């Protein structure tokens, strides 16, 4: 890697020396030139379709797309000749001529719409075509598709195809594709049917890569304001990954842990109790760890596959339903929390569960779909009443006029707010597995092990991370996959006969920190940094600093089993904390 051949080239008269596998775009960055891009997203969409990044390369036939064109020795590049600037502006105006002028009311308009940013930077005349009203046959208005998790407005789409690429190549789902051709080209579903009728797993990765407001989560804020008015007892819980990214919405550095400010803000928003999904993550480890040990000791079925990621669950239900019995029956942590709130907490506080509303703040869009699954209603009421994304929470905070960065730290409420470092790292790929191993190792050996950091399963460089451990004379072969394409690869290996004992799958690349509900970072950020890794750092730091770092040592969890659930895997635990899956 380090001894890569370097080449010398000239960009806008400046000498540049870069590794030979650099693109012109990358090389230009070295001399502080940001060539505008629109469709390009590193490792995801590299098709040179939007034509914004065209540059002149001496001797080449026609202008070249700098996002994909590699550098070469002696190359002479010009990035902003008058002709090129003129073209870029015209090109952008053409795109704008087919884009609704609704920035004021578009969620993306105020938070980093890449199209709007470019239009501002390039001094385009938005109205250049609109002025010729009679010329433009009114652009056809396309139907908006409001799914349970995903909201699609094809009118705002600029056909950059990032969403398609992520859906097909990274997630291997293929719910959407390019439909029709020419001016009628759209990104859509088969036969233009609602996205909810497709095999979409609601992971929301398409939203994260969308440069405009064409793709968003299903907007639940109006429903939330309505819920507030009902006078119900509002219980909120927040997933581990939320705290690692929420600050970005308030211009705080990427990777800032804002747990305390978030809790304070939630109280200011009027929630009656602020619980931590981390606590339920510890609970998950108790249940899932027990399930794993049981399966290892009783002959399977193995591998046991984690069930925390609802995107992965729906993926499995669609594409690998013959492996559903391998999937842990544990509910995902926030569903466990919901069930505990409406049973244990309701009993303890003497509130009728009918009067309690559980709201989950999640980095995830798939959890919106998950929350309304009929089977997730242990107490006769839906375990979770509403799921809001990290972005929606930020919007609420902004709507309330709360100065988020200035807030003092608050503390989660007891008893469902106490958690361990093991739970915190649930938000990153490998985290669930590491947390499980910490507990399983202790349970199997019967002693408290000092080896806590399973660094082999951390990080997102590798799509599938494998580890073989010797614990108490048992050999445990485990693997963690993130991104559904990697999950698919792993499933195919298992189907081909390869043996694993324990598999962690997170639907989103990098895990929940990069979930479909997290703050959208524009390509100008994503192209130059590993977003998921920066956010994960905050979680691992928090784990490192935790007093308790193993789930089974969580005092609140211990208390819960002692006074309410009995043993992990008990009948009561099963009733409240486990579920089943549906072949689709």
């Amino acid at each position, binding site marked *: 890697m380090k001894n890569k051949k370097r080449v010398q080239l000239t960009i806008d008269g400046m000498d540049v020396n870069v590794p030979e596998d650099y693109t012109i775009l990358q090389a230009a960055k070295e001399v502080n030139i940001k060539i505008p891009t629109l469709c390009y997203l590193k490792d995801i969409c590299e*098709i*040179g*379709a*939007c*034509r914004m990044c*065209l540059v002149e390369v001496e001797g080449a036939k*026609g*202008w070249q*797309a700098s996002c*994909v*064109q590699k550098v070469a020795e002696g190359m002479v590049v010009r990035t902003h000749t008058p*002709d090129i600037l*003129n*073209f870029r502006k*015209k*090109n952008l105006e*053409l*795109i704008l*001529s*087919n884009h609704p002028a609704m920035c004021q009311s578009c969620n993306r308009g105020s938070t980093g719409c890449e199209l709007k940013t470019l239009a501002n930077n390039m001094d385009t005349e938005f109205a250049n*075509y609109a002025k*010729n009203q*009679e*010329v*433009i*046959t009114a652009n056809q208005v396309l139907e908006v598709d409001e799914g349970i998790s995903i909201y699609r407005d094809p009118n705002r789409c*600029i*056909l950059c195809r990032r969403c398609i690429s992520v859906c097909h190549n990274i997630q291997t789902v293929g719910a959407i594709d*390019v439909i*029709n*051709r*020419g*001016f*009628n*080209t759209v990104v859509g579903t088969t036969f233009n049917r609602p996205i909810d009728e497709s095999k979409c797993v609601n992971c929301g990765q398409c939203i994260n890569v969308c440069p405009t407001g064409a793709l968003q989560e299903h907007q639940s804020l109006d429903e939330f304001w309505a819920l507030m008015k009902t006078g119900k007892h509002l219980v909120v819980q927040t997933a581990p990954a939320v705290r690692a990214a929420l600050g970005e919405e308030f211009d705080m550095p990427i990777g800032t842990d804002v747990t305390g400010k978030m809790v304070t803000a939630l109280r200011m928003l009027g929630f009656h109790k602020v619980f931590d999904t981390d606590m339920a993550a510890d609970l998950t480890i108790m249940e899932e760890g027990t399930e794993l040990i049981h399966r290892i000791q009783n002959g399977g079925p193995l591998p046991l596959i984690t069930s925390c990621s609802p995107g992965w669950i729906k993926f499995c239900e669609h594409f690998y339903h013959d492996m559903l019995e391998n999937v842990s029956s544990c509910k995902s942590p926030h569903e466990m929390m919901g069930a505990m709130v409406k049973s244990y907490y309701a009993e303890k506080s003497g509130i009728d569960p009918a009067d309690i509303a559980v709201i989950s703040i999640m980095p995830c869009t798939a959890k919106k779909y998950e929350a309304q699954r009929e089977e997730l209603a242990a107490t006769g009421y839906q375990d979770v009443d509403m799921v809001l994304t990290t972005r929606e929470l930020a919007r609420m905070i902004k709507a309330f006029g709360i100065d988020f960065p200035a807030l003092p730290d608050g503390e989660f409420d007891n008893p469902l707010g106490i958690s361990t470092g093991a739970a915190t790292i649930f938000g990153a790929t490998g985290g669930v597995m590491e947390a499980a191993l910490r507990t399983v190792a202790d349970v199997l050996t019967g002693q408290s092990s000092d080896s806590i950091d399973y660094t082999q399963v951390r990080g997102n460089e590798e799509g599938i991370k494998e580890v073989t451990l010797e614990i108490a004379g048992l050999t445990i072969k485990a693997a963690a996959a993130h991104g559904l394409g990697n999950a698919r690869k792993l499933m195919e290996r298992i189907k081909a006969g390869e043996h694993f004992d324990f598999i962690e799958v997170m639907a989103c690349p990098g895990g929940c920190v990069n979930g479909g509900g997290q703050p959208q970072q524009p390509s100008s950020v994503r192209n130059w940094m590993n977003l998921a890794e920066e956010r994960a750092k905050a979680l691992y730091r928090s784990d490192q600093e935790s007093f308790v770092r193993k789930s089974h040592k969580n005092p609140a969890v211990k208390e819960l089993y002692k006074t309410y659930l009995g043993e992990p895997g008990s009948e009561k635990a099963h009733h409240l904390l486990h579920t089943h899956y549906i072949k689709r």
Partner: protein
Amino acid sequence: MGKTIKDIQAIKEATLQAFGNRIGNDDDRIYIMTCCGTGCTSSGSLKNRERLEELMERDGLQDKVHLVKTGCFGLCAEGPILVVYPGNVMYTNVQPDDINEIWEAHIKNGRVVERLTSENEQDFFSKQMRISLRNCGRIDPENIDEYIAYGGYEALAKVLTEMEPEDVIKLMKDSGLRGRGGGGFPTGVKWDFAAQQQKTEKYVVCNADEGDPGAFMDRSVLEGDPHSVIEAMAIAGYAIGASMGYVYVRAEYPIAVQRLSIAIQQAKEYGILGDNVMGTGFKFDMDIRLGAGAFVCGEETALLTSIEGNRGEPKLKPPFPAVEGLFGKPTIINNVETFSNIPQIILNGAEWFNGIGTEKSKGTKVFALGGKINNTGLVEVPMGTTLREIIYEIGGGIPNGKKFKAAQTGGPSGGCIPAEHLDTPIDYDSLLKLQSMMGSGGMIVMDEDTCMVDIAKFYLEFTVEESCGKCPPCRIGTKRMLEILTKITEGKGTLEDLDDLEYLATNIKRGALCGLGQTAPNPVISTLKYFRDEYEAHVVDKKCPAGVCVSMLRYKINEDLCKKCGICAKNCPAQCISGSKTEGYVIDNEKCLKCGVCMEKCPFKAIMKNA
């Protein structure tokens, strides 16, 4: 089973023997060659064949008279065509009712039916030089032996036994052959790129997705001489080190597809395709892939994506297909006409070929002549022949004494060449200079009744519909251009619109992703350049000089011719013709629907449009 080179030689001699007087041998058999290309089939040549078969049976002449089904002779305007040997007599416009006469007079009594011979035959063929089309109309394309008889597969045999791959490439480079599909890239250079790639898997692809409306030369070659393409593809395979070829054909060409399938099947049976080509140990196989109606698939990267089973969207170049093509492997793509030249180049040598044509464009070019021209059809002429020669000498000029206005070459990617450039020798470079391009060779002639703004709009409509939708300049830009053109043809245009058009055109040309988008503005650019006065007439005077643009039409009653009969007023669906049998009639053009019924119904031809 598989035939060796010797076996093929023996087949050649036996078949030639059997050709009898078709090749001038003294022989008492009679041959009737019937054109069964798409053009003649459409005008009823199959019925003629049936009739001939009946007569043969009736008179018991099956042994003496031989019916040969051939490909296109080229003179499509006068189809159905049949040729009788001995004598090589061409009959044109032959209807089933004419068959009896030909049968009784010529076949049975040796008397030529003068009434059915063509006056234009001489002019049409004399200036032509047929290399690509050499076998079209001469052989039965469904019989491999007939192809072999005229030297077919000798070039392949020569290449496999006497030449190294690099010799073949050198010969191709020396010949100066350039791609006939549009761009005119030197074929030998393309092959060389692919040959240099150190990969075991490579492909040869034949582009037969002839999408230019009005171009049908590739179809005719596949219908009339499919083996020449198979032979050339095998030669290309040997030269670059590929063992598999695909022909990508338009599904709209059922006859071509069928003949090519038969030819491939026959070549396989003869061991000319397969694991051991003609016993030489060389391996080459072929398959057909059908297009599905997308013009953009004529662009090479789009074509490859389509073969791979995807939407036929172009990809960025580089990487070029010769480096990274079909299924990611080095691939050469040439079109049908390019391939059909190759066996002849191998057999006759590079010098023979580069002795034909102009300095930078060697050999011949096939054009599909169409539109307002007398001899519609397929012609093959040496590069450098002038437009005037093609249109007036070979094509027989413009029908009905009308005036020539423009020749459109290169289809939706090309431009319109005006009368002042009729004497330009046609080759790749001269056409580019005229803001047009060779394209695949469609040549549509337009006369004074053609509105050039309307034609530009026609092509833009085509491109808007056929744009793949991947890049904004083409997807949105061509649409915006079309909107402006529509506005102009509706009489609502301004001079500023013309500037906008030009500005858009320039930027689309510069910035579109693929060849389709980059050339899409050409019809507008060239008409704006040569026929700006027509645009201005639409914009400033609100008039369409050719009387084509409906919303600018004005109907008027010529008082001198009008007999005040009132038929026009009675038939007008908009009731916008008022008057009386005494006073005469007037048309209210504000209410007029421009349907033309009045003009159609007037017994005295007194109604004029756009007078």
